């Protein structure tokens, strides 16, 4: 007889969810698994080896791609987080802001347009104004699409924060700047940090724009990985992928914990 005690539960959903999580994690686990394969042919297991990791770390093309990605991501993250914070303060907290809704749409514009379209548009712009420096092109393009990712967590945090706190600070003789630095900023810091981290990961992970703007000396990590994939599946590629995954999981975990912080 069926036990009607919890009418909210549906039989089978648990098993289904279990299978779903297997599906979600099996593919990336396969990559990790094969990265330890001593055999040069990926799908033939030839024993455990860390050989491909040492090979990857001494691969100069990889190292330079990581460098390019880091330079671009760090600069794009810094700029986008600062301008997103300024915009969020006005959009959430500002008084008598005209076109508040429109302003928010403008800030989120990169999320509304397909990335490939924005990427080709940027490519045309840069070719028209004759900008040649690959890294500068990447920094400009990445800053643009990182802004909404930095903006959204900051906005959420600001909306969750009691506006009375700022007024209490002002009431206690704090100037606008002191109120911001001593009250608002510390309280929204987790949002700012998780926004920055999101922006960083999005920049590091970007392929579409970076690939299209790819020119001499400005090959980012995903674009480099893409070129390796084009050459075919290889154990070193698996090792590189595993390293990338480790780094992004670490970042994601920190960002997740930051967002949960109350």
């Amino acid at each position: 007889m069926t036990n009607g005690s919890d009418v909210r539960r549906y039989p089978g959903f648990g098993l289904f969810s279990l299978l779903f999580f297997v599906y979600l994690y099996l593919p990336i686990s396969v990559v990790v698994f094969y990265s330890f394969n001593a055999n040069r042919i990926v799908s033939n297991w030839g024993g455990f080896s860390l050989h491909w990791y040492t090979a990857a770390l001494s691969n100069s093309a990889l190292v330079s791609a990581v460098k390019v990605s880091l330079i671009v991501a760090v600069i794009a993250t810094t700029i986008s987080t600062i301008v997103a914070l300024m915009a969020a303060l006005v959009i959430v907290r500002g008084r008598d802001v005209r076109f508040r809704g429109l302003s928010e749409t403008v800030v989120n514009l990169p999320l509304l347009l397909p990335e490939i379209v924005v990427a080709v548009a940027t490519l045309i712009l840069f070719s028209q104004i004759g900008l040649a420096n690959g890294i500068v092109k990447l920094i400009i393009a990445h800053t643009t699409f990182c802004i909404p990712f930095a903006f959204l967590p900051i906005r959420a945090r600001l909306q969750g924060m009691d506006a009375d706190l700022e007024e209490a600070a002002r009431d206690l003789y704090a100037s606008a700047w002191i109120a911001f630095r001593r009250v608002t900023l510390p309280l929204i810091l987790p949002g700012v940090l998780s926004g920055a981290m999101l922006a960083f990961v999005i920049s590091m992970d970007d392929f579409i724009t970076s690939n299209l703007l790819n020119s001499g000396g400005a090959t980012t990590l995903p674009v480099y990985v893409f070129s390796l994939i084009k050459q075919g599946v290889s154990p070193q590629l698996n090792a590189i992928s595993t390293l990338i995954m480790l780094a992004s999981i670490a970042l994601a975990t920190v960002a997740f914990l930051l967002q949960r912080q109350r």
Partner: protein
Amino acid sequence: MNDEACLRAPRKAVEIKGVSKVFGTYQALKPVSFDIYDNEFFTLLGPSGCGKTTLLRMIAGFEQPTTGKIFLHGSNIQGLPPHKRRVNTVFQSYALFPHMSVEQNIGFGLENLGWSKDRRDARVADMLRLVHMEAFAGRKPQQLSGGQRQRVALARALAPEPEVLLLDEPLSALDLKLRQAMRDELRILQRKTGITFVFVTHDQEEALDLSDRICVLGDGEIQQLGTPAAIYEEPSNRFVADFIGETNFLDAEVIAVDGEQATVTTQLGMTLTASHKKAVAGQKAFMSIRPEKISLPAQDNPIAVDGTIMGTNYLGGYTYYLVETGGIRLRISKRNSVSRGQMFEIGQSVKVGFAAESVRILGA
């Protein structure tokens, strides 16, 4: 147990037999047994966490008893899922489906029971009339006031003509004035439909006002079951005396027990004989006397003491006085039926009195 309360033929609508509930390691309800009769307005009354809602949810089928059985008109409904029990619930939050109109909400249960469209429409129209909501048939719940939602929830639960209607604190979300009006409406509905109502509340006034019988629950067990008058006048323990209405508790020493009567010496210094529950000769007990049963000033009461007015609380229809006598403070309520000039002032010396019949002795 208080069989004089059952004026109608005592057909049992619900039988609760040794039902208990344990959540994890927490015993929400110790094993309880009682019957609810047909056409009765039965109330489960108690403070929050006393197990009353758990009991209601077990009758509805949302929780399964850890032990015991529940019978609905003689048949065991143990293990039957909620949608196969001919009982309906009025939820505390009303739980009206926000995506359905008033009509669709009321018709939902009938649809699931397989009623034809014509029969359904007729029934829905009847129900709308019953709760005076004809004009709102097409509205969504969000477009109704609290009182209107309450009426729709009632109509929805009554429409399938359940064998028992369960009401889970249905008035708690309404404001005071509306609550009073809905009480009257609930009573009228119960009489009109003749359906057994099982009503859960923590509001003792509501329970006294509405119920044919009240089951007072506390600490997961039945404290007392009886008519409102019996529960108020003859509470069976300190918990009930304290929870229902207001009372003054005084320490007492039991001298002798003779059947229904016990003789005690009280804190006030006198010895008196009054009705009791569980008093044992030679042991300590409590004496309970309701504020309205103390005369101020003492008339020709057999028991009278001198005291001083220590405080007054003017509440319009009544005034509460705090009178100190021999180091004990008594709360006394007095109807303001005479002019204000006749009222007492702080510091005034008074004589207060009461009758031994008004006193209840409760074993410690």
